């Protein structure tokens, strides 16, 4: 695998800017609850593009890719466990302390 060419770099920038424009357009499309997944999905695609082309992870040796993959796996594990905990626990773990709910109405 070779380093990206200037043409590939420019093309990547254009795609990144277009994706940013799409994210912005969806902001006004009022997708409701679906909007969160769409916006973060587009952000993930942009991040992968930056990692693949600008950060040149494809030309790195397996040791480098493994080190970063381990970090991303830990990140995904933490988010998955956290979200799983919050959406399944009752009462919610991060809500207002008991007895203080009235202060927060408004």
């Amino acid at each position, binding site marked *: 695998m070779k380093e990206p*060419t200037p043409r590939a*770099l420019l093309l990547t920038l254009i795609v990144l800017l277009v994706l940013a424009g799409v994210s*912005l357009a969806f902001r006004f499309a009022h997708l409701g609850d679906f909007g969160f997944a769409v916006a973060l999905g587009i952000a993930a695609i942009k991040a992968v593009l*930056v990692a693949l082309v600008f950060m040149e992870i494809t030309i790195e040796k397996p040791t480098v890719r493994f080190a*970063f993959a381990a970090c*991303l796996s830990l990140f995904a594990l933490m988010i998955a466990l956290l*979200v799983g905990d919050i959406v399944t626990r009752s009462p919610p773990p991060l809500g207002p302390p008991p007895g203080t709910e009235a202060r927060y109405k408004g």
Partner: protein
Amino acid sequence: MREHVAGHFEDIEKQAHAARFGMWVFLGTEVLFFSGLFALYIGYRIEHPRGFDVGVEHNTLVYGSVNTAVLLVSSYFVALGVHELRLGRNRLSAWLVGLTILLGLAFLGIKTAEYLHHFADGIYPGGTGRFFEEHTDPGLKMFFTLYFCMTGLHAIHVLVGCGVLSFLLYKVATRSIGAWAPHPLAIGAIYWHLVDVIWIFLWPLFYLVTGHVR
């Protein structure tokens, strides 16, 4: 050629690999460092969707969006700078790195203007200020506390990135590094790209998305 290789490396290629590996491991710790804050954001957003919606609506979309474009273009310039350095075009590379630094400073300038805008509205770090007396939803305090914490930490990273790139700009301009050993600029650029990637996620979280997470 050999004078550019540290004594404990066989050749420049192994030295460059070790440097890149070290940078990637460091970036891994940076991701984990920010991941706690992202986890907090998701957790509190699930618990306080209304407050987070109001917070997103209150943030100025133009500031965040312009800053997104600024960082994406800066990432392109520094990547191109690395490419030119590999070809031995130090002068062009130095210009591109210089442009990257300028865009980084522009990002910080826009961020400062945005913070001042918030302060004028009575929104201060830690959920203090008159804004929170008028808006008592606890989610708003969570939102703006996370906003200042995450964007502030990110801004510090941009500042550090500008410092690192300024040092590398000096090295490129004085031909201390060049086509024979471009890896110092390459690993500095990788750091800059990570700063860009973090903003790629901060932008939708604080300026774009409304609605429930689940």
